[in-house]
Every structure is written in structure tokens, then in C-alpha cells.
């Protein structure tokens, strides 16, 4: 047992956690953004897949992983637009639209993989993103091991979280966005373009989540595989709730979730391992506990999931 505890505090477990957390954190921040603007974003899983697929495909064609990252951003924005089209313009229930998008993208990426590469399992290997080491950090012993050498999107995530926090909570644009999520009627009254802001937010959120997919495909690995997001989008949704609809909270929650994953992977190598499945279960159980207010009061934006102008029929779930 004490062996397992030791693993948790090993520095390379934490390094692995940082790497594993990145896709979840990016998708979670995407969830934070869109939910703060009142749009429930169940579709994060689909955006991760779209980003991962587009990143690998364009890298495969061009040989340049940076173009792959750009393609991921474009694909994510496209999926964000699709969610906007259905959830805003066509007034579909947000949850249903998100579920539909996830199934659509799971099917589409698997289909395209077979049409283009003739394989249902994995794509051919492509050039991955390089690893960067940060000049000053790499000379400091512990920090060097922890954040010394990662794919660029890992650093991007660490910078994006505080940046998004500033935008959301310290700028007029962020205030407007949050006002839409809390009280769209009031936002409309003071002249904030509700739908346009929501669309823009979904574009940004789509790009962020798809970057998570790009990290998964080109940062961690160098190929696309069927359903490679494997539920990380749903975990990101949980991280967003766990992190109290706050970008920094989302990042920290993603780190915590990823730590359980990293620990689980390392524990397998011990002579007396803990049961894998029970460790893997922790993030999901924690989220249920947090949502039930067992750990801390959590409150979603007041107008989350509502259409504006309101629907005529009352009581839609």
C-alpha cells in the first residue's frame, strides 16, 4: 500500500499528470467559456475528436504538425458553429444537440479514417509536435523535471487558463459574456448582442477544445485512433463543474483527474497494484459528490441551457 502512495508523489507521476491533463483542461476551459455564455456544451467529446482527426489528417497531407494544429482549430470552430446553429438558431435542446454532435463526430471521424486510410483502428503515423524545453526552467532541478520538456500545447494550456480568467472576470467583454449566461433578457436590454456573442464564444470554445484533440493526437502520440478521446470530453465537462465554471478551476480539476490516471498507470507496474478500475473511477465519483454539494456549493450560470428569446412551452428539461 505504501508503495502506491509513494507513486503519487513521485515527480515523474506529476509530469505525466500534466501531460495527460492538457486535453482535458483545454476542453474543460472550452466548456467553461460556453456555459458561462449560457450554452450547455455536452459536445466537447466531439470537438476533441474533430480536432484530433483534422490535426492528423492535415499533418499527414502536408507533413507539418503546425498546419495540423491550425486545421484542428478550424475544425473545432466548425463544430462550434454547428452546435450554435442547432442550439441557438434552430432552438434544439442544448443537451440533445450536444449528444447528437458527439455521436456524429464519432461516426464521421471513424468513417473518414476508413475512407482515407482504409483502417478502422489507427491512422498512419505522422510527424508529432516537437518538444520544447523552457530556457530558464530547464536549469532548475525539480521544475526541470516537472515542466521541463513538453509539447507546446502543454505550455499553451498553462498560460491560457489565467488569461481566460482575466478575460472572463476582469474585462468588459467577459462581463457581457457572463451576463448572457446569467440573465439574457437583461443583457439584451442593455444592448448586448446575445446571439452574436454566443456564436463567437462557441467559435472560441470549439477552437480550444479542438486544440485539446490536437494535443492528444500530435502532442501525446503521432496518429489518430478510433474514438481516441475515450470520454475525455465528458471528463472535461465534469472538470468544468468541479472547477466551478472558472478557467483556473477547470485546469486544476483536470490536473487532479489526470493525476488519478497517471497514478493508475504507474501503479500497474508495482508488485502489489491497487485495482485499476477503482482508481479510474475516482474522478467520476468526485464529480458526483461535488455536484451534490457534498464538497462545496456549486452553482451553474442561471440561464444555462435556456433559449433566448424563451421557448413558449414551459418545463423543457
Amino acid at each position, binding site marked *: 500500500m505504501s508503495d502506491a502512495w509513494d507513486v503519487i508523489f513521485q515527480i515523474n507521476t506529476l509530469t505525466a499528470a500534466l501531460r495527460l491533463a492538457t486535453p482535458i483542461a483545454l476542453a474543460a476551459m472550452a466548456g467553461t467559456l460556453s456555459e458561462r455564455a449560457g450554452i*450547455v456544451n*455536452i459536445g466537447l467529446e466531439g470537438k476533441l475528436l474533430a480536432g484530433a482527426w483534422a490535426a492528423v489528417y492535415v499533418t499527414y497531407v502536408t507533413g507539418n504538425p503546425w498546419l495540423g494544429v491550425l486545421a484542428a482549430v478550424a475544425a473545432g470552430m466548425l463544430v462550434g458553429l454547428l452546435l450554435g446553429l*442547432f442550439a441557438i*438558431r*434552430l*432552438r*434544439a*435542446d442544448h*443537451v*440533445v*444537440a450536444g*449528444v*447528437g*454532435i*458527439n*455521436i*456524429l*463526430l*464519432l*461516426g*464521421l471521424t*471513424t*468513417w473518414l479514417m*476508413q*475512407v482515407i486510410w482504409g483502417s*478502422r483502428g489507427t491512422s498512419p503515423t505522422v510527424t508529432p509536435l516537437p518538444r520544447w524545453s523552457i530556457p530558464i526552467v530547464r536549469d532548475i532541478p525539480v521544475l526541470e523535471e516537472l515542466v521541463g520538456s513538453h509539447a507546446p500545447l502543454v505550455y499553451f494550456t498553462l498560460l491560457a487558463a489565467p488569461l481566460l480568467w482575466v478575460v472572463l472576470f476582469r474585462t468588459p467583454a467577459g462581463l457581457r459574456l457572463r451576463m448572457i449566461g446569467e440573465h439574457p433578457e437583461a443583457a439584451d436590454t442593455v444592448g448586448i448582442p446575445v446571439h452574436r456573442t454566443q456564436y463567437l464564444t462557441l467559435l472560441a470554445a470549439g477552437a480550444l477544445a479542438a486544440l485539446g484533440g490536437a494535443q492528444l493526437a500530435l502532442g501525446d502520440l503521432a496518429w489518430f485512433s478510433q474514438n481516441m478521446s475515450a*470520454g475525455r470530453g*465528458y471528463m472535461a*465537462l*465534469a472538470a468544468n*463543474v468541479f472547477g466551478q465554471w472558472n478557467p483556473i478551476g477547470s485546469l486544476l480539476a483536470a490536473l487532479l483527474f489526470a493525476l488519478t490516471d497517471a497514478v493508475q498507470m504507474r501503479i500497474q507496474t508495482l508488485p502489489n497494484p491497487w*485495482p*485499476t*478500475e*477503482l482508481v*479510474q*473511477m475516482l474522478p*467520476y*465519483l468526485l*464529480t*458526483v459528490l461535488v*455536484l*451534490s*454539494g457534498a464538497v462545496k456549493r456549486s452553482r*451553474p450560470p442561471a440561464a444555462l441551457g435556456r433559449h433566448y428569446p424563451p421557448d*413558449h*412551452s*414551459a*418545463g*423543457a*428539461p
Partner: protein
Amino acid sequence: MSDGKAPAAWAWLRELLVSLGAVALALLVGAGLLALAGYNVADAYVSLYQGSFGNIYSLADTLLNAIPLLFTGLAVAFAFRGGLFNIGTEGQLYVAALATALVALALPGWPSVLVITAALLAGAAAGAAWGFVPGFLKARTGAHEVITTIMLNYVAILLTTHLVKTQFKAPGPVDQTALIPAAARLPELIATTRLTWAIVIAIALIALVDWVLRRSAWGMDVELLGQNPEAAAYAGVPVQARVAMIMAVSGAIAGLAGSTLVLGVLHRFITNFSPGYGFTGIAVALVARTRPWGIVPAAVLFGALQAGGLSMQLFARIPSDLMTVVQGLVILFVAAPGLVTLFRRRAGKTGMALEREGTR
């Protein structure tokens, strides 16, 4: 669900058209994808049809695929009627399947009727418990059932895998239980088709849910809650208790999808056995417009897409994942009321539009 004052027959027809339109539109987009990828669309859809309705065997295959969807679709639809979103049917059918398999294994030598009944009840109870938790949490703490049910899906899959690996694993490379005794297996309705009495159980359950929703006081509470929770509370409906119970009942129904698969098809519990019956159940419930009897054609439709997709892959060499794309599109199209308005505006004011005057 229906918000106009239109006669029931018109509303019914309108909803049927919406569902059919959504499916047709999704298949049309699918045809576009097929053409873009350079396949022969006609060949593809002909083999889709032949693999689903073309002959008696493919029809049996379609129905076999539809059975679990009858349960999960009904479970999602029932929760919807009460204003609740049960995305947790996948997890509920896993815990139920394991409970059913364990009971079937624990009662060797019992008469067939008794062991099957006990195993089904155990599955329903496990599913109900798995549905009750998010319902109870929603009622007591307001925790949104969408997120809690998704989380509990993962917990259920991991928990059943853990239990099988550590406690109930049959010898061999696969993480699965031993085969259940012959007496515990659901008898076949038609020999050699694997179509068992599960389909009868499902239809009976649909009839029961339809009756409960329309004729019982409890069902009235459910409908009222779904349409207007504030009014329900004002009318004296015990909202908290009903919310927990609706989710438990929905979980029990979903659970039977897993139980009947174990007793009728798999004859054991196998880890990770479900190809997403729970999520497809959401599509089924939406296409059925949450009407209990609508579940039957909707489940058959998605069963047909699965069976036909497989034959498309075998005979036309077209990846069956196209059917997953179609399924996602159906969900999107059928869930978008604005899509109907859009088409209607294009088509001008027809009689259909007139009766919906004043609603958007």
C-alpha cells in the same frame, strides 16, 4: 410536449412527419457522404435495405438489434415525460446485466420460470438503484442529472469490470462470467433466430408505461412534472419523491435491456459488451417523440440501421460507421424545432402552419 391547441390527430401527424423528415434528411446527408467518398449510393442503400428488411433473416436481425433499444428508448422517453434527462441508461444496463447474470448463476436447478423471473427482477432492481441515485441527488441537492448520469455510466462500466475481474471471472482470456445454465436462458420465439421472449417483455412494458402515463394518477403526476414543474408543485405533487422515483423507474426499464441481453443473447456477462445501446436509446426516444408506442417503430428503425449497416459493410464494402453518422444527424434534426419552422416558412402557409398559428 405539444404546445398548440391543435386536435390530437394533427399533432400526432405533425410529429410523425418531423420524425420521418429527420430520418430522411439524415439518410440524404449520408448519401452525400457516400457520393463524396466515391461509393455507389444506390448499391449502398440497396444493401442497407436488404440487410435490414430484405428477407426473413435480415428482418430477424433487425428485430434482434431493436430489442435492447426498445428498453433503453422507453427508459429515456419515460424520464423525458417527467422532464428528466436520463443519459445514464448505458450504466444502468451494465449493472442490471451483471446482477441478472449473477442471480442466474446462483440458482442452479431452479425451474426455468422462477430463475428467469428472479434474474429479471434482480436486473430491474439494480438498474432502478443506479437510476435512483441521480434522481435522489437531483431532488435533494439539485445536482443536474445530465452530468451525474454520465458520470455514473463510467462508474458502472468500471465497477462491473472490476467485479468480474476480481470475483466472478470464468477461466480464459476474456473478462466474462461463466455461461448461465440452460434453464435461465430466455426461450426462443422463432427457432434459430435468437429472437426470444425479450421482445414480448418489451412490448408488454411499453403497453404498461403507456397505460400508467395516460390512466394512472401517478402517471398524471409524471406528465404534469414534465410540462410544468411549478404547477405540479402547486397542485400538490410531491416533486422530490416523484423525481427520484421517475429516475428509478427509468433505470429499471433501461436495466432490462441488459438483463434480456444476458438471458437471451449473450448467456453470460461480458465486460464492455454494449456498443452504445444507451446512447442510441436517446435517439430512439427522440424519434418516437417520447410517445411509448412510438418507441416500437423508432427502435425497429435504429435496429434496421445497425443490421443494414453491417450488411453494407459485408457486401458493398462500405464502412458501417456511416450509420453512426446518420444516427447523430437524426438526433440533431429531430431535436431542432427551428428546422421545422424553417421548412414551413419556405413552403408557405399550409394547413399545418395555420393550426400552429401563434406558436414559434
